[in-house]
């Protein structure tokens, strides 16, 4: 199967995520799609796998133009995508998950499915027990299940989005050899989306490099790593140096905290944060870092231990109360939990000013106008919040944070933002830090964590490990964190 993307363009608001991209993927070859965060890799792969349509441009399969309404359409044409966080149903068995999405009428044929599952798995050298529950599998095993499922549904082109984050070295080796065999023996086309150059060097035959939504390079491997880095970043970026700032009194203290995250329980977490400090929370999605943030905001109960804000235990206090104590939480889902779809900017500002029975609309409008100017928000006081772009919604969320905060809890504060907005957001946050606020934030982007954190708390398999000496080590800090996240001890 030969797949061509021609002149694919996709814009989000003013951001050109994909700018007239033309790429070609031949049968039986393994490609890498390289680029830093926000380069447009995910957007392009979502278009190719049917999750979103392009604004313009065409996808050709063996010379025939195709359009996908849904991921199922793409899969019917043989294009399957393996997501970074595998899209499976955790409380079903492996076999049930495998059977999801098969079109075989009312009564599924469990026995035939089990045989197909085992056959595909054996062919790839995977060992998967059909009757185990998915939530007891490791990320690596869930990936294997997903690959087997996509193959059985007829995938001829596999897209893998950052597949080596969070799997063991052995699983990575197994994955890579299976992919190579699929390509060589069965003509499978493989696209690896990654920013890990060693993975690209180990697996891929050709490399496409994206930067700022544009295709900036197409190379055949082997290509020197330096050349790829230069293509990805334009020029090698120096790591920003952190200005010295003073640490104040202890703001947050966690004492042997135990809490339940989506898939696991985090135990025995202890941490002390002083004013003026920035702590990055790293870990795979769902390892407990977001849950810890929510617990600090009084939004999630603890199983054990306690959390103190400026020496006061927060047990039994709601978020509204903590907010008055100078603690603010900003979730990553802006319109899901943070802003109210359907209310205007003025109404949002009116909600956050707490005084009096009647709303002083003139004052609320004035406050909105002032904050719009100060935070450079593209919108008017009477604009409904959902009409703003993601970047402007994020600006609004930050503009809504009260003054004189002591502790800021931020879940992925730059999610979906372009480079400029990201820089702006951090400028605002660091200004808060310089005024004496402590910041805890999560991010899936290790570079962001390394850049802005004074210390990093790494969440992995129910443990939280504090990394204090980011700069001291001779090794690349992001790489070190990546290994900790993946469960490798250093």
């Amino acid at each position: 199967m030969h797949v061509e993307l021609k002149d694919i363009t996709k814009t989000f608001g003013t951001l050109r995520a994909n700018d007239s991209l033309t790429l070609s993927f031949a049968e039986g070859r393994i490609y890498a799609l390289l680029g830093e965060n926000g380069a447009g890799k995910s957007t392009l792969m979502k278009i190719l796998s049917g999750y979103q349509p392009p604004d313009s441009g065409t996808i050709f399969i063996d010379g025939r133009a195709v359009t996908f309404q849904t991921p199922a359409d793409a899969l019917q044409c043989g294009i399957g995508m393996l997501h970074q966080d595998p899209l499976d149903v955790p409380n079903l068995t492996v076999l049930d998950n495998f059977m999801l999405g098969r079109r075989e009428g009312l009564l599924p044929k469990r026995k035939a499915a089990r045989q197909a599952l085992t056959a595909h798995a054996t062919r790839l050298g995977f060992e998967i027990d059909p009757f185990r529950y998915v939530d007891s599998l490791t990320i690596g095993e869930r990936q294997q299940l997903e690959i087997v499922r996509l193959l059985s549904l007829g995938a001829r082109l596999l897209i893998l989005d950052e597949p080596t984050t969070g799997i063991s070295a052995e699983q990575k080796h197994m994955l890579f050899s299976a992919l190579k065999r699929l390509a060589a023996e069965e003509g499978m086309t493989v696209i690896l989306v990654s920013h890990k150059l060693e993975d690209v060097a180990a697996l891929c035959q050709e490399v496409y490099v994206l930067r700022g939504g544009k295709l900036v390079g197409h190379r055949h491997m082997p290509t020197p790593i330096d050349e790829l880095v230069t293509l990805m970043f334009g020029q090698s970026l120096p790591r920003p140096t952190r200005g010295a700032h003073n640490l104040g009194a202890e703001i947050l203290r966690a004492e042997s905290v135990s809490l339940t995250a989506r898939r696991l329980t985090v135990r025995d977490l202890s941490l002390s944060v002083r004013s003026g400090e920035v702590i990055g929370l790293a870990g795979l999605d769902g390892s407990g870092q977001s849950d810890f943030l929510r617990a600090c905001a009084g939004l999630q109960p603890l199983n054990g231990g306690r959390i103190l804000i400026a020496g006061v235990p927060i047990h039994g206090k709601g978020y509204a109360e903590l907010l008055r104590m100078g603690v603010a939480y900003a979730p990553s889902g802006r319109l899901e939990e943070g802003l109210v779809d359907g209310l205007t900017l003025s109404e949002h500002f009116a909600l956050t000013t707490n005084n009096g029975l009647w709303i002083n609309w003139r004052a609320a409008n004035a406050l909105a106008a002032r904050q719009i100017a100060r935070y450079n928000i593209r919108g008017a006081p009477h604009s409904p919040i959902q009409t703003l772009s993601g970047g402007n919604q994020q600006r609004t969320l930050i503009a809504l944070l009260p003054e004189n905060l002591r502790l800021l809890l931020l879940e992925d504060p730059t999610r979906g933002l372009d480079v400029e907005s990201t820089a702006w957001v951090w400028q605002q946050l660091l200004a808060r830090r310089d005024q004496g606020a402590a910041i805890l934030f999560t991010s899936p982007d290790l570079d962001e964590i390394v850049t802005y954190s004074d210390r990093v708390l790494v969440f992995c398999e129910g443990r939280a490990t504090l990394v204090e000496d980011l700069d001291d080590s001779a090794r690349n800090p992001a790489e070190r964190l990546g290994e900790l996240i993946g469960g490798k001890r250093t």
Partner: protein
Amino acid sequence: MSQAAKLRGTLLTFGAALSAALALIALIMLSLDKAPLAAAQRFLEGAIGTPSARADVIMAALPMLLCAAGLLLTFTAGLWNIGVEGQVTMGAIFATIIARTIPRDVSDWGALAALILPAELLLAMLGGALWAGLVALLKIRGGINEIFGGVALNFISVNILLSLVNGPWRVGTFPQTAPFAPAALLPRQADLRLSPLGIAIALIAFAVVFMALRGTRFGLQLRAIGRNAKSAGILGVRVERNIFWALVVCGALAGLAGAFQVLFTRGRLLPNISGGIGFMGVLIVLLTGVRAAWVLPVTLFIATVPIGSLKLATSLDSAVQIDAALGNVFQSALVLAVLIGGGIRARLAARRKERAEHG
């Protein structure tokens, strides 16, 4: 979209829905060999043709208006207060606690006589608020959806009512109390069945709710909770506290409506005292799409239905005589048609927007 275009769209939707509901009624009547046009004329005469008919419509509208006003608060906060029926019933029961003890002659009570009515109304509001407060506590502390809590409490309130009128409060052969003394009732005009005081109370209650939704922090917080409770909480709104008060105020207003039923409409406590006015309030708020400004005219419109269809039911002309239940069919069909019309409009708007963005 401009305000005028929006209004035009709303009126158009409502007109289409009304036509659809009327067509359905006409079809039902034709299938029963009745004359729809003659019946419609008879209905209009019966509902708004005479001063006394108009007074009946207004008085029938008052308890519905009270329920609808309360439900505006709960619907704004995204709560389905189905328990409103039980809250009406408890209001009626609590008002009866005082009303049944008032003697026919209170001439020697002096100034105390002036306190009878306020005491009845306050107690009724307390009864409704208590019942709604239970729904709120079940939801907030017990995590029980307000619909389930409300349905359960509706059943309980009906059974409390039945056990009272069959037991200790029963007077005579039927399960009901004795007629209340005039001093216990809402004062009414001699010639028309009209109570200016009742009208004033209902309008003031509605105006207070209207202004609360428009200009107060409470109203804005309820709107934020209704649209996205999680986000509201992150913005510092005390979600649970606001939910509690929205339900309790709604319950108090429903209790007041229950008091209207015993102190004006029926003049005694009897089974099915609410007569479904709580649910009628739900229908009204749904019909208006939770827009307070529309509640008053829609309530008046809805109130013509039971009055008019009662006239049809009691008509001697067999070409138009039909059971009053048809009125309920009409109301429900209208609500469904309006909801469907709203859905169609939203879909058309989305399509128009998409086309505007891509072309």
